[in-house]
């Protein structure tokens, strides 16, 4: 291969790699996207009807702590008065209160975003404390939900941990009991410790209350944590677990799902304490619903782990500083050179024919708009029309250009018809035929018709086939999420694509089509 070309290719690649290297080494970029998914968007919807003129609902709303960061909170409740209140139980919780005249159904929506981390607190090997500070000691007292003085509970504790001084061992034993001996049932009933014990099965509320009762009966401070397990979807199912005071800190324990000393990062804490998370005051009916979605990480965070814009030189050359709509546009644009490389390989190394040079890539881009199935369907309809037109319009003996224009008009009408009928039968993709794919399809039909007349049906169909193959290959590559994001974070990688194109451009070796064609000569 030509020396000049090799040198230029090497230069381009070196430039690209050095830019990438700089970003990775000095600006904290990572070559592989960091795992995303610990940022959530949560929407809490409250509905209630009041019994009398005025009613209110109270809800424990999440606060930031080392395990979760709450941000971007918003409240929508047009006819209601909304305010925050310190929870009675202590400074750790906060209540949102919505109140108003409530003869009709009232709806309030509270939205927030949360970034969570797994919550790990390793318990010490042993703990023999017997005196606790006041704010901790309150979690030793009896309450309605935690009836630890009940004889059944007391007997059970004595049975499980007869003479244990080490509180850590005690807690472990009690945890094992509640986790293993009490079965889980997803019922929504208000269970308490005694019912759980009696029935040998409970929901998370029952298990948490039982565990707490057992711990307090063993003179270990324990409190119930009320919260939500974050999963995409809608739910009104709260989750309750516990925290036990060991070795000077609160250790999280979930006897429902089996976590000791930690809870996973999708556990969201709504309140620490014993009162109900939701409460209606003067309400006839009251319901709540959580809608949870993952918040897409911004591209920047995926690659830099940081949402602040890059500083220094990078600020000027980084695409992350562009407005979001432009970013989306460029994500696609950056794929085009890759698509062109694919076309070049298919044409010059494999040696297949196609309509035009960039037509397959434009078709691939159109497929992104229409979806693959609909895109191929449209293309087939267009090609089929081209063949039909040959037989019908030929009889009319129209001049070439008006004939094609007539055909284009027919295509537009057909697409209109498909779009309308798509709307009728509820196929969203069919109904939303955008301009760009139509333009591309009409280009294809023009080329197809001309090839049909000039080279015959066989050549036209062969070219159509390979054009679709190349378009599919291009579509496949362009759909690789990782590639889109990688090129966006490292647009200098396009230089490498260009280097490859230079090399393909000087490739004078045999094409696969040559090998097939000249094969008979190699045989004797």
């Amino acid at each position, binding site marked *: 291969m030509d020396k000049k070309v090799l040198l230029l290719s090497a230069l381009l690649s070196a430039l690209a790699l050095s830019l990438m290297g700089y970003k990775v080494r000095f600006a904290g970029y990572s070559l592989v996207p960091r795992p995303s998914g610990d940022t959530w968007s949560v929407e809490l919807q409250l509905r209630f009807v009041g019994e009398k003129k005025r009613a209110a609902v109270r809800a424990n709303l999440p606060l930031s702590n080392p395990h979760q960061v709450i941000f971007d909170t918003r409240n929508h409740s047009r006819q209601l008065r909304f305010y925050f209140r310190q929870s009675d139980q202590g400074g750790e919780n906060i209540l949102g209160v919505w109140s108003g005249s409530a003869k009709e159904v009232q709806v309030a929506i509270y939205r927030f975003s949360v970034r969570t981390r797994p919550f790990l607190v390793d318990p010490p090997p042993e703990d023999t404390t017997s005196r606790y500070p006041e704010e901790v000691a309150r979690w030793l007292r009896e309450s309605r939900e935690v009836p630890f003085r009940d004889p059944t509970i007391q007997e059970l504790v004595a049975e499980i941990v007869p003479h244990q001084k080490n509180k850590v061992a005690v807690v472990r034993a009690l945890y094992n009991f509640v986790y293993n001996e009490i079965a889980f049932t997803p019922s929504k009933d208000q269970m308490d410790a005694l019912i759980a014990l009696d029935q040998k099965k409970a929901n998370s509320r029952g298990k948490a209350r039982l565990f707490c009762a057992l711990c307090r009966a063993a003179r270990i401070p324990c409190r119930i944590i009320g919260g939500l397990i974050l999963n995409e979807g809608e739910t009104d199912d709260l989750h309750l677990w516990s925290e036990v005071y060991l070795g000077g800190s609160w250790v999280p324990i979930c006897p429902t799902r089996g976590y000791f000393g930690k809870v996973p990062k999708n556990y969201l804490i709504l309140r620490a304490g014993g009162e109900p998370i939701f409460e209606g005051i003067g309400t006839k009916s009251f319901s709540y619903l959580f809608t949870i979605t993952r918040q897409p990480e911004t591209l920047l965070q995926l690659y830099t782990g940081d949402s602040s814009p890059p500083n220094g030189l990078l600020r000027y050359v980084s695409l992350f500083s562009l407005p979001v709509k432009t970013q989306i546009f460029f994500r696609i644009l950056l794929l085009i050179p890759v698509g062109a490389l694919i076309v070049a390989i298919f044409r*010059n190394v494999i040696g297949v024919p196609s309509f035009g040079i960039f037509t397959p890539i434009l078709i691939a881009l159109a497929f992104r708009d229409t979806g693959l199935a609909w895109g191929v369907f449209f293309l087939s309809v267009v090609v089929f029309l081209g063949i039909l037109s040959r037989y019908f319009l030929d009889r009319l003996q129209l001049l*070439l250009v008006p004939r094609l224009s007539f055909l284009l008009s027919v295509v537009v009408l057909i697409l209109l018809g498909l779009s309308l009928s798509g709307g009728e039968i509820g196929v969203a993709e069919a109904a939303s035929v955008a301009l760009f794919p139509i333009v591309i399809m009409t280009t294809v039909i023009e080329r197809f018709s001309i090839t049909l007349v000039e080279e015959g049906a066989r050549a036209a169909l062969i070219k159509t086939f390979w054009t679709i193959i190349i378009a599919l290959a291009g579509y496949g590559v362009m759909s690789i999420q990782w590639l889109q994001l990688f090129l966006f974070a490292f647009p200098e990688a396009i230089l490498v694509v260009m280097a490859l194109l230079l090399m393909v451009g000087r490739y*004078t070796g*045999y094409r696969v089509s040559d090998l097939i064609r000249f*094969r008979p*000569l190699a045989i004797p």
Partner: protein
Amino acid sequence: MGLIQKLRTLGICGINRRNAALIFPHNPRKFFPRVDDKLLTKEIALHFHVPVPELYGVIRFHHELGRLEQTLAPYPRFVIKPARGAQGKGILLVTGNSNGSYLQTDGQRFTLRELKYYVSGILSGLYSLGGQVDQALIEALIEADPVFQKVSYGGVPDIRIIVYKGVPVMSMVRLPTRESRGKANLHQGAVGMGVHMATGMSTYGVYKNRPIEYHPDTGQRLAGIQIPFWEQILTMAAHALEMTGLGYVGVDLVLDRDRGPLLLELNARPGLSIQIANRAGLLPRLEALDRLGLEGKSPTERVRLVQDLLGSF
């Protein structure tokens, strides 16, 4: 793969190599109209005293179609072809005219109206490279020399010669078949017949990319046919360098029964199937010529080179 090695040893030239190493360096774009526009080719040929088929007329504009019947009247047999057509597209061969109905060589009949429609298609650029507007040439229909009669079916066979830096290096005869409907076009199913450069004797055959020994329609043996006027043919081909300024060009000639060899057209991007017809690669011959100095040699001198150098090819 072993296949690649074998083809390399044979010196087979692939498309990429042809485009990069032959066409690109040796064929300046500015000279392409000389070969793409058949009208221009004819003028240049006449300037160099290279015989061509007789030109009956040219149709340039749609409004001339009104007089098409009168224009064609003096000639019972003629050929209509696009001036800028490629790969033999758009050529119409008419052998007779009865009651306003024109008979083609493949048996089809055109009414005057259909003929006008056809010609207007040519003018609109339907068959031209890149779809540009075009002119229609009306030429004399060639009466083929009987030498190839036994190995062709209908139509007129032609002789393709690849000329490198003015030296004819490889040649094949293209023989029409029933499948090609009288067209001497390999893509459309004609037979390619390799030729020994020094002697003008036919060697092997290729049909639809496969080697053959006998013509598919007539069943006659393809090897061993001596092409008449071979030295004259080589000389005409050698002039291609001076005529076109292109260093790698395909010359298409036809043997007319009465007038002998005539230049039909020139091609700036000659195909590579000629290698299959000759069961040999182009590259060894081209490399042999590269080792010599070809500057300042006249066409006649270059023809002698063919016999000396390529006697073994």
